[in-house]
């Protein structure tokens, strides 16, 4: 059962990574305009001014 000593931290670390990623995305405003992001992808590529 010594394998658990490695596996559990790895599992928790990966989970925590996902959680941090989500919290980061939330904080950086990526959830503020979901509809807009869906439409913006249809725009022609023009360099942002």
């Amino acid at each position, binding site marked *: 059962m010594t394998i658990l000593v490695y596996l559990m931290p790895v599992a*928790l670390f990966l989970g925590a990574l996902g959680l941090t990623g989500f919290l980061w995305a939330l904080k950086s405003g990526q959830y503020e305009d979901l509809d807009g992001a869906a*439409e*913006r992808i249809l725009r022609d590529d023009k360099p942002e001014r």
Partner: protein
Amino acid sequence: MSCCAPSAELALDLTSTTSVLPFSQEIRLASRSLGDNLWQTDLSVPTVHCAACIQAIETALGRLDRVEGARVNLSTKRVAIRWRGDSVPPFVAALGRLGFQAHLFEADADKKDKTLAELIRAVAVAGFAAGNIMLLSVSVWSGAEGATRDLFHWVSALIAIPALTFAGGIFFRSAWNALRHGRMNMDVPIAVGVSLAYAMSLYETINHGDHAYFDASVSLLFFLLIGRTLDHVMRERARTAVKGLSQLAARGAIVLRGDGARDYLPVGEIEPGMHLLVAAGERVPVDGRIIRGASDLDCSLVSGESTPKTVTSGQQVQAGTLNLTGPLTIEATAAAKDSFLAEMVRLMEAAEGGRAHYRRIADRVSALYAPVVHLTAFVTFLGWMAVTGDWHRAVTIAIAVLIITCPCALGLAVPIVQVVAARRLFEAGVMVKDGSAIERLAAIDIAVFDKTGTLTLGQPRLVNASSIDPAMLAMAADMAAHSRHPFSKAIAAFAGFAGQPKLEAVSEHPGLGIEATTADSTWRLGRRGWAGWKARTGGEGKYGGYGGTVLSKNGRIVASFKFEDARRADAKAAVGQLKDAGVSVEMLSGDTPDACGDVARILGIDRFVSALLPSEKAERIEVLTKAGHKVLMVGDGLNDTPALGAAHVSIAPATAADIGRNAADFVFLRESLSAVPLALDVSRKAGRLIRQNIAIAIIYNAVAVPIAIFGNVTPLIAAVAMSASSLLVIGNGLRLQGFRLAELTRASSATHSGIHPSARSS
């Protein structure tokens, strides 16, 4: 850009009479400084809805001088513009050229929604903890034993700590608040259950026990937080959408100083005695008396009268009325806080309606639920103590009862249905302020409508256009295009070329009409007595009609115009549908009995009361309420606001006055009045589903509680039972979405048959 025309499907049907381009000083007041001479302005652009709109707006605004950048937020339908310098770049005009109507927005965009952010973070943390603990629990259930099981329990206990403190804190605080005020809410049993479950599991872990309920306590928090977040998102979205509508109250006014200087002051700083300049097209900011000038005032929002009132110097004007034709200088007689508007707010607060006493279904259920659950757990403990005398076993079983009865399904049963209902109404252009509004609307038996602005649009419509000589009509339309008077706007809609002579000079005489000269004659469009100054010598009888508005050529009347207040689309159908749904319909108006009688007859409303003061409207609703009725109030004017507050539940159109919109529980954005029966229908269906969901939750308890009382619940059974009941109520709630398919087919056939509503209703 055809898809971006303001008449597109999602467009808000705001009338142009009520939205004047915001002043540049006004924009300045509403902007916030980002430092370093950089400013940010938030404008609400309700008609933006596709990629092309975003592109058009961002490039057009970006090209303006001194504009640093513009960013459209499609979800909130807002555009944030950052600009430099002292004067405001002309972005409202730029948006106007693209065909987008812009409205000023409160400068509170920097105050992000803290509650929502906290809820989402809590959901994320609880979700992470629940997932990991559940994995460990599954290993325990599938046979981990001895030291391995203890290790798993210890890790679970550690993961649960952040979830309980961070995510659980929301429930602990709310439960503590309720208890401190001697109330019971759903959060009390949640807080008690979760913390006891954790404490017992910790005790078990320390003593190498078999059963730990870490998974149950954390996944419970996770499920409940989802329900709570959805509830919050629904309310917040409606609130932003409502706040983003055009603001009708004046934000500031030009003050004339004694030395001739002109300052633009915010409304709050205007004091009695100051002289204010109110240009044509602006709203009167505070109550006052006219010193100079004459004009027509649109009082429809204030008193409900549909015909504009002519005013001259010396007369009193009320805050909130719209100055239509001529510039006025007024002396303020009251500060903003003592003005008509504030008086309405005071009346509204005095007429505290059903909503203050209303207790939400979930609260009513939990007031019964929590004591029963706690009593059951306590009795179970006593019972097992009496039978076995083993206190450890008795406590374990009693806590298992608490866990299994934790109102997981109950906490989701109501919000999930209301969120789905609010979503459906949102798609139909109806905003719901909060969940309790849906519960209250389902109970109404009387619908009371205001007339001007609600059943009618408050805008005149020319009714005898077909009997007027096309050349004269085109002439009148050319002249009318120079005025803001509602009658002029109605005539100007018939513009077209029919060989009319070209206008040379046009001048507007406030309270009288418009005068124009052509190469050989003088034309007047306006009051009969003024325009037809030679009418007594002939002409009047020949052209007929007794309408008050005429077109004259050199003093002889050549055409007369008849108007009626245009009815809101589908008004008659909506009244009919409400009657079919068993709701009696009544009309209360501040307008004259004649005007009310016409509208009532055409729309098929049996009872109406006319010439009411704002307080009398609220009194009438209180009388109905005392008689045991649940009253729905639909109104838009400032004068309806006390009534909106007094009613059990209230609905306002998007064109309503600011405080009316804020007072109402529902706000509908499209012109059609069919939003009212739709909201009623969805609310009643939601009410049915909520009752079903509560029944499901109670049945679940009836089955699970005996199992728990007899000590047969293991953590595995608890996890399965709780998740199953939650999924069941969510599934049942989503059925509300399913009703739509059937309705869409019905609605589309209805529009085909109802293509000529005006022909039917008139």
